[in-house]
């Protein structure tokens, strides 16, 4: 891909994200026009409009974009590491592991003490999940067999779901609500603090992955080839697995488990622009942000005043996409 084509592609995706952001802030239980939003951003106009825009819609939109970005980058990295187009933090059970970590932190009362603790607990859960998936795949057969990896992911995901259900059984009403939240995924409790927290994890992890983009290109071909072309394979894998798990964990810690964003968006980028990770990581990040913004806007408005869990919307798009991918690969 030429630098010019890459620049045009990224500019188009950034413009799309900006449009989605405006769209998402405009539509909701109360539809607002663009002028009113602009004035509200400046703190002018109807006080209730200002409150809706500044206190509700905007932080929610920003958080949706950041969560989508984190999940897409995470999925792209897992796909290269596992040489598997069907890999994604949700399907691999990594999101489930992160949810258990987060729920654990909430139930043990750590999360109240320090808002930074929940993502760290989620990170530990995510690492346990990916380690378990790889371990099971190695025990059963070859670590990189698509079907075995997916089965291992399903099994580990089911196990972590059971863990959350177990916690639910003994939990009080408040924990019950929060457990449901972790399992279904929601952006309804978005705040500026959470968005800030997420970007503190997102930005360094993205820079790490971008620095490893060439190594990820090589790992997507094969570990032996990557070594012969100058990659320190074990070190790169360790850092990339950690970065991808961290991204998924941070997303889950603020918004619960939202599936399929990390599966769909890297593939859409690949279909249009190819597989060069130097472009694919930033492009999938922008597209993931756009996708989740739109999915959340739909979830808020389609059955208003009832709000759908956003994971329902992403699954309704993601499952047919997954089946299509599976058929195309003949896996």
């Amino acid at each position, binding site marked *: 891909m030429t*630098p010019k084509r890459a620049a045009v592609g990224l500019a188009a995706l950034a413009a799309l994200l900006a449009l989605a952001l405006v769209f998402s802030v405009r539509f909701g239980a109360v539809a607002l026009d663009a002028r009113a939003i602009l004035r509200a951003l400046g703190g002018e106009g109807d006080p209730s409009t200002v409150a809706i825009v500044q206190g509700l819609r905007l932080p929610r939109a920003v958080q949706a974009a950041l969560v989508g970005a984190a999940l897409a980058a995470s999925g792209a990295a897992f*796909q290269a590491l596992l*040489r*598997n*187009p069907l890999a994604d933090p949700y399907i691999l059970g990594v999101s489930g592991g992160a949810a258990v970590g987060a729920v654990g932190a909430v139930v043990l009362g750590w999360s109240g003490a320090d808002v930074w603790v929940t993502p760290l607990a989620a990170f530990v859960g995510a690492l346990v999940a990916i380690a378990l998936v790889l371990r099971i795949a190695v025990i059963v057969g070859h670590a990189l067999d698509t079907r075995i990896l997916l089965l291992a992911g399903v099994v580990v995901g089911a196990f972590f779901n059971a863990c959350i259900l177990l916690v639910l059984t003994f939990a009080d009403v408040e924990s019950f609500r929060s457990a449901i939240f972790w399992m279904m995924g929601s952006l309804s409790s978005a705040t500026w603090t959470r968005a800030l927290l997420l970007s503190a994890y997102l930005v360094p992890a993205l820079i790490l992955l971008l*620095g*490893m*983009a*060439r*190594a990820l*290109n*090589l790992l*997507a*071909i*094969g570990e*032996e*080839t990557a*070594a*012969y*072309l*100058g*990659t*320190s*394979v074990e070190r790169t894998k360790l850092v990339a697995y950690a970065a991808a798990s961290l991204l998924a964990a941070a997303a889950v810690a603020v918004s619960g488990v939202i599936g399929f964003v990390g599966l769909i968006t890297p593939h859409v980028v*690949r279909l249009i622009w*190819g*597989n*060069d990770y130097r472009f694919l990581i930033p492009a999938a990040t922008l597209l993931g942000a756009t996708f989740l913004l739109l999915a959340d806007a739909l979830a808020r408005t389609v059955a208003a005043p009832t709000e759908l869990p956003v994971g329902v919307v992403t699954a309704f798009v993601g499952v047919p996409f997954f089946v299509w991918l599976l058929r195309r*690969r003949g896996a």
Partner: protein
Amino acid sequence: MITWRCRNLTFRYPEAAAYAVDGVSLEVPHGACTAVLGPNGSGKSTLLRLLLGVLQPLGGEVAFRDRPVRAWTRDAVAREVGVVPQGEEIVFPLSVRELVAMGRYPHLGPWRREGPRDVDAIVEAMTRCDVTPLADRPIATLSGGERQLARIARALAQQPGALALDEPTVALDMRHEMAIFELLRDLGRRGVTILLVTHNLNLAARYADQLVLLDGGRVAAYGTPGDVLNRELVEAVYRWPVRMLHHPGPGPDEGVPQVVPLGGRP
């Protein structure tokens, strides 16, 4: 000058009963073509990986350019040695040009963009391997022979002083197989050291300066094609009756020993 030198090299895979490589000592001289031969499971690929430093030996040592191979970083090796390993399964969309361009990665590091010198190296490598017309084709749509040429072009784009290939012509038709061996001879004339693992005794005899015949992880014979390819030795290693002929010519290979396996149950 010696490119690779190893002494008393031993290696065993975890949980394997026998040694895959068992006391191998050899030298791969600079600017020559060395072919490693032997039956399936005789340790050819393992020996190659040990020489390239991606496997660590249990005993013995490997020196690359007179320095222990483990003292080299992976990207320093990659600037000196182009490798064409066996089977790569490419599951994501990738064009021939993109694949060949990866040969420049060791010279670029994580952030630097390709410059004019890199583009020149990519173009030259594709020209030499005759894959320029395929530049924009996805790898998945190529035939086995075309794919192999593209992978060799990737190794050449590294502008390496040495080239290591693991069974580069397996499952290829005669035309592609000959094209690859002629390419290797051409590279050898330009001073590139070639280390080749192959099952094709007759082409190895014609195109290699030195043969290493492995049997059960040990060196059964080591020397010029005339020394290594004699009837008793080949029959003993492959456990099959053969007759020895000489290449009838015309051409540069006239008189080189050629192995003909006999028919009928031994």
